[in-house]
């Protein structure tokens, strides 16, 4: 086998004043023809900078300070930009993370695909047309003529990603760089895209550099694995070796943090903390919530699992009345939350608190952490002094240092901010905690820590938790019961172990089959 891409001692410097000197430091590896090499690492480990450096598309503030990148024996470092441009798209191509953002919204799919040929090869119109159709066919897209005439916004995320892959493969590149290509997609779509990338590789024998943070995906697709930590390549080897017998401590820690498909023992039956009956919410003709019934027991965790568009986030927001439900009832301790108005509503809604998905958007950037949590405690019924004590106590409880009290959210990482969000929610002593994809934006190590924290807090405080996620692995790890949601309806609901072992609904089976890395 010949190395189609050889990277030697590559370093990319960060601008002065960053938290470390190099984004990528002394990285060397070979990518063989016909091989899928996965680069794994937490966010900020430099894996995206590495791929940008190889594409010769580093952001302006970064520059390559050292090392060489050779594509099929030809050195890329120091190549004039015109020569590099001729190689890009032609000999190496990129599959982006956000397919919709990568496509031009004002051009039809057929024109965008055709343009790729126009840029790098002169083809007669009929030949170009034939090749575009052939590409779309190879992507297993339904109704090719309609899709060719469509604009990107008329297609789903998975379809857009297929178009991006078609574009990348259009000119038969030697190297395909896929930067988290399935992160923005649902699990069932993710499984299809992974299959597509493997198929393309089998057909044309190009090398694939696959960047991801998800070990499940690695298990599914990788021939070899490279692990990055803080800009350095700490381990590289055959997938079977690295995943089974990791040599480096960091790799072991990452692997240990991956949620397993193991269920915790369901808790004992308890009286209901929250009873939801016939909850509806329509957006125009779309039934985001189509008669949802739920019972959440005291001290128990119920996971709501579903793909994007299933209505699970609308459910979370309807339960705290940020989205106003169209009908139904939400009974908490004998009070119907949906019947409340004015001051009654302000009191009643304090029983249900939410932990948000985006740790960066959920905290007011201009308020100090301590005052934010103390204010929640005051609204929960404490006096000012008692609330400050409670806030300090909660910060310690979620594992943050005492000096966090007087700092602003900007001083904290994503995982720490999520802990602050948890402390704020708990400050009100709610009966029900709703976690809306609260660990989805976090790296696997941090995700495992936050999940452990939530489980521990629940055991200690006995609060009921509604845990909303798209990830069945996470749902299994934390919940007593799982409800599967699809198109605004709960299609199946039972304890986690039973759901995994004996799924009844077809959709549940499809979800379980699509879990990566089984």
């Amino acid at each position, binding site marked *: 086998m010949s190395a189609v891409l050889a990277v030697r001692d590559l370093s990319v410097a960060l601008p002065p004043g960053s938290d470390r000197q190099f984004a990528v430091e002394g990285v060397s590896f070979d990518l063989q023809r016909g091989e899928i090499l996965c680069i794994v690492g937490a966010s900020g480990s430099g894996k995206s900078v590495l791929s940008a450096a190889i594409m010769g598309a580093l952001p302006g503030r970064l520059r390559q300070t050292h090392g060489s990148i050779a594509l099929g024996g030809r050195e890329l470092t120091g190549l004039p930009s015109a020569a590099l441009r001729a190689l890009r798209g032609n000999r190496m191509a990129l599959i982006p993370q956000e397919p919709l953002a990568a496509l031009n919204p004002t051009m039809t799919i057929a024109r965008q695909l055709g343009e790729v040929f126009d840029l790098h090869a002169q083809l007669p119109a009929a030949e170009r047309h034939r090749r575009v159709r052939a590409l779309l066919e190879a992507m297993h897209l339904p109704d090719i003529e309609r899709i060719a005439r469509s604009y990107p916004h008329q297609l789903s995320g998975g379809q857009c990603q297929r178009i991006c892959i078609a574009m990348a493969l259009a000119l038969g590149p030697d190297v395909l760089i896929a930067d988290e290509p399935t992160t923005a997609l649902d699990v069932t779509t993710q499984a299809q895209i992974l299959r597509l990338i493997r198929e393309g590789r089998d057909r044309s024998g190009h090398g694939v550099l696959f960047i991801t943070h998800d070990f499940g995906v690695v298990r599914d697709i990788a021939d070899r694995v490279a692990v990055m930590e803080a800009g350095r390549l700490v381990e590289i080897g055959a997938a079977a070796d690295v995943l089974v017998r990791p040599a480096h401590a960091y790799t072991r820690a990452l692997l240990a943090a991956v949620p397993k498909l193991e269920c915790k023992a369901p808790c004992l039956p308890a009286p209901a903390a929250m009873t939801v009956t016939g909850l509806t919410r329509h957006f125009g003709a779309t039934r985001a919530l189509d008669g949802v019934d739920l019972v959440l027991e005291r001290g128990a965790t119920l996971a709501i699992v579903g793909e994007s568009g299933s209505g699970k986030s609308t459910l979370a927001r309807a339960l705290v009345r*940020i989205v106003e439900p169209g009908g139904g009832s939400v009974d908490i301790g004998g009070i119907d939350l949906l019947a409340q108005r004015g001051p009654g509503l302000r009191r009643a*809604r304090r029983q249900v*608190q939410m932990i948000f998905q985006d740790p960066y958007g959920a*905290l*007011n950037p*201009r*308020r100090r952490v301590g005052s934010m949590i103390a204010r929640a405690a005051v609204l929960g019924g404490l006096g000012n002094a008692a609330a400050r004590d409670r806030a300090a106590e909660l910060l310690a409880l979620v594992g943050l240092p005492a000096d966090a009290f007087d700092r602003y959210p900007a001083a904290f990482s994503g995982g720490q901010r999520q802990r602050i969000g948890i402390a704020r929610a708990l400050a009100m002593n709610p009966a029900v905690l709703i976690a809306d994809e609260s660990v989805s934006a976090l790296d696997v190590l941090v995700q495992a820590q936050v999940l452990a924290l939530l489980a521990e807090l629940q055991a200690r405080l006995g609060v009921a938790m509604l845990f909303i996620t798209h990830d069945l692995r996470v749902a299994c790890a934390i919940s007593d019961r799982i409800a599967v949601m699809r198109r605004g309806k709960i299609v199946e609901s039972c304890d986690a172990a039973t759901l995994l072992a004996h799924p009844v609904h077809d959709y549940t089976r499809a979800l379980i089959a699509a879990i990566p890395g089984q």
Partner: protein
Amino acid sequence: MAVVGLWVFVAVFAPLLAPRDPLVSFAPLLRPGAAGFPLGTDLLGRDILSRLCWGARPVLGLALAATLIAYALGVTAGLIAGYRRGWADTLLSFIANVILAFPVLVLYLVVIVALGASYLNVIIAVTFGSAPAVFRIVRGITIDIAHRDYIAAAVTQGEAAWRIMAIDILPNAAPALAVDFCLRLGYTAIVIGALGFLGLGLPPPAPDWGGMVTDGRALAFAFPHLVIFPCIAISSLVLGLSLIADGLRDAQ
């Protein structure tokens, strides 16, 4: 920054800095550089430098007062409309749009002609014209911020609406508003100059940059210094405020 600082300094210490009484006549139409009159004198023989120094006071004072009042009104209404939406938003936006539909200068003229020329009425006129514009900006920013998760968090905590607006929304809107405030301050200074030029500013003989340009206009070709120096004063002040606004924007 330095230019604006200089004018503020001049306005505050006008009595000490101005070499002469701005209202007293000396020899008329002296050229700049004449002994004791570095910028010359006007048609009535008043010292132009002194009139510029004293003239900084009404311009700065009025511009600041009018802009502050416009902001107080615009921010309050904008927060309510943007956060509450519904009929309050419809009503307030309608009023703002009706006012904004008139050419601003015509609006000022109408208000001042109706109420008469005085300090207070200049402030009322400028507030009347500026507040709707401030309202629209604040309303837009508020609608944007109101959709963020930390607002949702405050709502689920059962926080009072006025506290959400004052503590969670306003501080996060402040950086963008600070930029607009400086630009609007400069714009108001121009308006006050324009009103003075149209003879609707301060009643004579009070020193007024816009009024000085009007008085000198007829003789501008023979004695350009009558017009040039007040124009430089207005332009430098507005330019300085714009530069501060740019600086604030870049600092964000």
